């Protein structure tokens, strides 16, 4: 599976991807908040506000409930580490980062699930009702989003005969006609619904709510302070960037670097930034226009995503 790129260039690409995700995540969230504020008729905070927040949070005091075990401080570390592993190895900017041959779509899903489980365990360790509630709701939504996600991945993998990420991207680049096939469109819709559910955005979850009874993801981090909180918020933004970039690279891969030259990487960086801007703005506009779904309507939404993904798989078999 090796493409013959030098080890230094592959490592540089991985490092660039990690930096992009760490810095770009908060910037993406800041940009989305700016779009929302403009649509509400306000100026809003600057685009780099989340970075200012993270810097300040890192310097504050860490607290811990007296009865919590070592799972509580370990959970944010595991959450960030899983996202960083995906950022380093998945083909975000180029088709062959370091160890890119091992980037399997199913493996990415399970790694992100490890992060979610660790955050839920950290929330349960606080021994409060908020932590239990957030963990229960988040794990329910995660469990119901899994079928839609894995079947949508199946729909993407069947035409490419592999679930290996670089393989899918390279074969998509070679067959531009695949973009217009019904299975791609259906799988895209299913993916978008699952990404909205997994990253805790409206209409599934409101990330800026103050009412604990309406919280899902936010309830799990109520007890974290200082650097722990910075890690959890950073992980939230990193996951959104990684999922959006994977979405863009799987469905609209043009712009991704297929060789390690600096010009190709610059083009890849610019095109990825452009795709993230488009996706972020679209999500922000959508969030302004919809109301949050009632919690027990979310399974219906995810079931709909599952049906769409199954239709996508069936259409891979019908359409030659």
């Amino acid at each position, binding site marked *: *599976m090796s493409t013959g790129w030098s080890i230094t260039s592959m490592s540089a690409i991985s490092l660039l991807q990690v930096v992009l995700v760490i810095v770009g995540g908060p910037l993406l969230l800041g940009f989305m908040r700016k779009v929302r504020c403009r649509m509400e008729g306000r100026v809003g905070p600057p685009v780099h506000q989340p970075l200012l927040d993270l810097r300040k949070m*890192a*310097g504050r005091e*860490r*607290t*811990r409930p*007296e*009865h*919590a075990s*070592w*799972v509580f*401080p370990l959970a944010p*570390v595991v959450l960030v*580490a*899983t996202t960083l592993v995906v950022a380093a*190895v998945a083909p975000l900017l180029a088709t062959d980062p370091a*160890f890119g041959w*091992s980037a*399997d779509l*199913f*493996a990415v899903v*399970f790694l992100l*699930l*490890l992060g*979610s*489980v660790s955050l839920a*365990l950290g929330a*349960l*360790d606080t*021994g*409060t*009702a908020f*932590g*239990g*509630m957030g*963990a*229960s*709701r988040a794990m*329910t939504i*995660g*469990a*119901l989003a*899994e*079928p839609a996600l*894995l*079947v949508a991945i*199946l729909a993407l993998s*069947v035409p490419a*005969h592999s*679930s*290996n990420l670089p393989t899918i991207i390279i074969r998509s680049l070679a067959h531009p006609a695949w973009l217009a096939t019904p299975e791609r469109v259906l799988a895209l819709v299913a993916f978008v619904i699952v990404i909205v559910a997994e990253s805790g955005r409206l209409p599934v979850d409101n990330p800026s709510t103050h009412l*604990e009874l309406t919280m899902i993801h936010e309830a799990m981090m*109520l007890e974290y302070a*200082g*650097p722990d909180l910075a*890690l959890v918020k950073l992980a939230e933004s990193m996951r959104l960037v990684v999922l959006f970039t994977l979405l863009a690279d799987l469905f609209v891969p043009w712009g991704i670097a297929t060789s390690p030259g600096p010009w190709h990487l610059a083009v890849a960086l610019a095109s990825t930034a452009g795709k993230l801007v488009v996706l972020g703005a679209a999500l922000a506009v959508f969030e302004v226009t919809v109301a949050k779904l009632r*919690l027990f309507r979310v399974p219906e939404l995810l079931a709909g995503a*599952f049906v769409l993904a199954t239709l996508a*798989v*069936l259409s891979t078999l019908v359409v030659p």
Partner: protein
Amino acid sequence: MTAALLVATALMGLAGTAAGAIAPVRFRIALSSALTIAACALGFVVGAEVLHSGHAAVVHTTTLMPLASFSLALDRFGALFVVITAVVGICAMIFRFGYDGQGLASRTASSILPLFVTSLLLVPAASNVTTFLFLWELMAITSLLLVLTDHARRSEVQVAGQWYAVMTQLGAAALILGLVLLATRSGSQSFAVIAVRSAHLPAWVRSTAFVLAVVGFGSKAGAVPLHVWLPRAHPEAPGPVSALMSAAMVNLGVYGIVRVGMGLLSGGPAWWWLLVMGLGALSAMFGSLHSATSKDLKRLLAYSTTDNVGLMLLGVGASGLFADTGHRALALLALVAALLHVVFHAVFKGSLFLSASSVHQAAGSTDLDQLGGLLRRMPVSGPIFLVGGLAIAALPPFCGFVSEWLLLQSMLHGLPSGDVAIAVAMPIGVGVLALTGGLTAFTFTKAIGIGLLGLPRTQDAERAGEVGRPMWIGAGLLAVLCLVFGVAPFLVIPSVVDAAGAVPGLHLAGALTRGWNVALPGVPGMLAPGLVAIGLVGFGGLVALGRHLVQQRPVRLTEAWGCGRELQTVRMEYTATSFGEPLTRVFEDVLSPARDVDVSHLAESRYYTEAAVIHTTIDDAFERRVYRPADRMLVRWGAVARRVPNGSVHRYLAFGLVALIVVLVVLA
């Protein structure tokens, strides 16, 4: 040499039985456990040797049983199961040294347990019908007696024993019918001869034998709808016994289906394997749903066994389906995925059941709503439980991740083959795998989070302490294997491929491992679990270091934030029931929870409520809708039938006449 070792294994097991029966109380547990460990060790050596060399270990004697020969021939496929049983047996027996509960110290239990383990070790080696049925029944009866160990102290044990006895004998009846049908039609009871002659049998004989075998072995494996004994028997059995049952005995159900379907009958039409896949899908979804909404830890683990057996059957069914349509390499891949899941399930389920017993001994209960805060009070057993829970949820870097990935890959690569049955079955298979994966993650977040983390919900949980060293060594060995196999699956995969290749007709072009990674031969697909582990540890270390460097003050221990509430008690903590409530609501139609509200009023006035109690019961839908009505129907028929023999000799003579006429007509 291996034959002699096989005999030695059996003899050592019998010695353990004798020791348990004869030895005085002081030495009973130690001696019988030590001899059982020795038997398992010998079994491990035999199995490993057969797997490595490929030469079967054959033992044949006609003097042991009247009218039949006792014949063992351990091939590579059976050897895999012997090795699994041996490892789980060793860990369970080590655990037993420190286990001081539930009547396992009695003479009966101490002598039956080694016999049970020996029968588990020998069943995969049986090579003719009589030996197989004899060992199978021995296994069933010994396990039944072990489940009933504690019957004098609790009445639920008796009920569990009844269900187990009935289901296991029903399964055995189906098995006897199926195997005897095959043997009589083939003219010989030796498995080798049947395998050769079965190709020439009429299709109805083959299909009937296969369906009977699926019923018999499926009930032992705990596949839905024959699973109803599992959630009752496993929780009531003592710790080491339930570990052995879930991690070694249910495997033999899967072993049987593959042995009969692919070994004796050499594969069959697609509908056989669609039946197996259908049972597998049903078991997986039903088991995972019930374990997600169960609040008793052992019952949760029992339903989780049903769930995992469903996944194994999905793999086996997919393998048979691919073999039937001519894709031999894919068939082997699917079978390897299923067998790998058997191996890994034994490791993490064994560890989980032993940990659950440790928790029971330390905190006095397996009801999750009465546990909590155990990770801090059990500093070794707690992390062991955590590892088992993460492994079963198929999370990296543990072993469940690798087997789940292989199962998904076998379904994915089967899709473009163009066959209609495959085209419909594979997406359903992936959907089922995904749903059960998500629900299992939910279940074990609940089990770990409510049971181990947070505040202790009762005084017993608060007073819990670490259990004795043998107990956590037994559970810990299996947990260590979860991690080792997860990071280095190349240690196990070649043996599993060899074992699967022993089933006739399947062969794989190319190895399944490349260096440290799992690589699919011929198609692009690689998994690097070792790399994932290194990446997680590396990045985790960097992040933790960064956090430490950035920190300006020491960590402050405070009260948890409760909105400024003055009275924060442990009653405000989430329970397992509340954790599972959203899921119960989503799947209300399937689970049909029964809610009972009991309101008691004050004596002085009916308008004032003194107490309100809500009972929510989620019982097994198959039990409620199939088994209980069937039971009632049988009782009614029995009542009718009891009136027929009314004591009159004339009626009995008439019966005899009618029966004679019927037999004469049939024979004519």
